[in-house]
């Protein structure tokens, strides 16, 4: 019995390893090729080991235009939006999950509606609003509209709904205010969901292309994905440089992921101890 279960475990482990390789392959190829002097868009097995290791691509990319500035812009914008979402989606999601109020369904429908309508028909009117606010080509345009995401609200609502109410009720009996309940009782329990939210929001905004491209015009306000798109010349793509830039651009996301990924699991212990 014990033996069969351990062979099963080994088999399972091997399957997981196999899946992992499949998932990691493109990222691996991207990084490996970014150190190669002759990356191209035709993939050969032999490319898996980079030919002619060089840092040249990275040096070129880093010194092309104000690349550090683009990097900073993206980092600043994505971080602010992530921070905003963690706080605001928690608040709004909590209200939707736990409170009763008038027009609740209508308001929730509005959340879903913003998710459901293709952006292509909303671009022009949204652009007009940004312009009339005087925010065109500014950090405001890049940050403020995205501080609370419909997806985040939805996620937090679902997660808070699955939490037991006992702790909140207990705190309420103890005379705690709503804000204290939300930020001291509910928020710690939501750590796993908030971590997922943070990863998702950071990722989406770090990679966001369409709106930063349309809402800004100057080099000062350019974000990394827009800069990367501009790296592509007429009809041709400069793969070695694009891959180096993409690898650089993946770095912060990996760091953010690893940081918040821990929170997903540590939420478990936190929740367990509280109970």
């Amino acid at each position, binding site marked *: 019995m014990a033996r069969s279960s351990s062979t099963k475990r080994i088999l399972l482990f091997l399957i997981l390893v196999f899946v992992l390789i499949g998932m990691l392959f493109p990222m691996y190829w991207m990084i490996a090729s970014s150190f190669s002097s002759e990356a191209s*868009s035709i993939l050969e097995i032999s490319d898996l080991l980079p030919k002619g290791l060089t840092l040249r691509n990275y040096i070129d990319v880093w010194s092309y*235009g104000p690349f550090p500035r683009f990097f900073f812009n993206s980092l600043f914008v994505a971080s602010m939006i992530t921070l905003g979402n963690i706080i605001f989606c928690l608040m709004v999601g909590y209200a939707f999950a736990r409170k009763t109020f008038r027009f609740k369904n209508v308001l929730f429908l509005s959340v879903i509606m913003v998710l459901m309508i293709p952006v292509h028909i909303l671009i022009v009117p949204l652009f007009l609003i940004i312009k009339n606010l005087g925010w065109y080509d500014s950090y405001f345009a890049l940050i403020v509209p995205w501080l609370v995401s419909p997806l985040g609200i939805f996620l937090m609502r679902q997660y808070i709904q699955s939490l037991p109410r006992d702790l909140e009720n207990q705190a309420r009996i103890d005379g705690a205010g709503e804000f204290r309940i939300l930020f001291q009782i509910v928020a710690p329990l939501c750590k796993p969901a908030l971590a997922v939210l943070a990863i998702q929001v950071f990722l989406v905004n770090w990679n966001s292309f369409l709106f930063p*491209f349309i809402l800004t015009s100057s080099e000062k306000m350019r974000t990394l994905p827009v800069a990367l798109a501009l790296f592509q*010349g*007429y009809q041709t793509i*400069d793969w070695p440089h694009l891959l180096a830039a993409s690898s650089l651009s993946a770095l912060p996301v990996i760091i953010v992921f690893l940081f918040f990924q821990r929170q997903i699991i540590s939420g478990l212990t936190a929740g367990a101890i509280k109970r």
Partner: protein
Amino acid sequence: MKVLKVFLISVLFILFTCEKKQDEFVTLSWWQFWTNPEVKPTILELIKQFEKENPNIKVNLTDLTWSDGHEKIVVAFGSGTAPDVLELGSDWVPEFSYQDVLLNVTLEAEKIKNEFLMWEPATIGEEIFGFPWILDTRVLFYNKGLMEKAGLDPNKPPKTWDEFLHCCNAINRLKPDAYGFGANSAERHRLYKKFLPFLWANEGRILSDDQAESEINSREGVQALEFYRRLTQNGMVDTQAMLDEAFNHNKIGFVISGGWLLNDLRKNHPEVNFGICLMPKPESDRGMPASFAGGEFLVINKKSENPQEALKLIKFLIHKNNCLKVCQAIGSGFPSAKGAEFDPYYRNEPYLSTFQEQLKYAISPPPHPKWVYIEEIIEKAVEEVMYDKKSARDALDEAKSEIDKLLR
């Protein structure tokens, strides 16, 4: 009364000084596509020079991307925030001209018309909406190494359709190591550019002169599409970007491509033994080596507050010497100014003379307000034939009736 007079005079004075002040300093916005590290510095340098020559004008540059620039331009016009000066690809100029968002520059253009080439895409009836800047076209690239391998004479690229097909077929037999012809897949807004040259070469036409009906299903049209089908059957189908890469890797014998591929080959793939030649003709004594007229145009926003200054900038940019600098940075393309081809730069560029020759046979689609739809119908017909859903005759008959419906 006197008070009123003083008031009026002072108002006029204020207005006048304000006006004057505006006159003194103008900020022009210019959106352009040349953002890659090889070309951008040249653009910036030209702007600096322009600002030096015109100290009252400051140029505000915004970069567009080839893949998504169209969206940004549409949103800008849709919300009334389009720039003063805008670079548009030759295929976009008619589309925007018909929407009445570009400044009619007929008067100015007429003055210099004889000194420049390729006005057709910017001309609608008697009116002109843009200035040609950089001319470009596509030629036939052939892989000498593969031709040799297939038992063909690498120094005799195909001149007629029959020869072309024969060569593609011979190389295609080397598969899977190599394929004959690199055929474009169903890429929207691109496939028609690949098929139409064959139609034009065979003296076929899309629309009649008075644009009252379509002539695409003529005998010439059907022949051209039938030939295109056989070409694609003797090769591989992929996107333009992948076809170019395949050519870079000695994977295909023939591809129709532009100056960008030439640059890439010379810079990054010196090992590829290739040549370029004019597009083949239907028969040695019939038709012509037609190709698609590409290129970049400069247009002015109809709502621009500084049309005079915008015009100044355009005239500066299309000036032979200034444009030549840009073309040199790009590594391909030609200034729209006549006579630029005699510049010493081109004398030392053997490949570019083929492009120059090809430019003489470069054709652009007939300007029509519903071109986007016509283009879609043509692409559908080509696809249906490529995928053996219909015969060339049936597909084009249907295309004609659909286009006719649009024209009505």
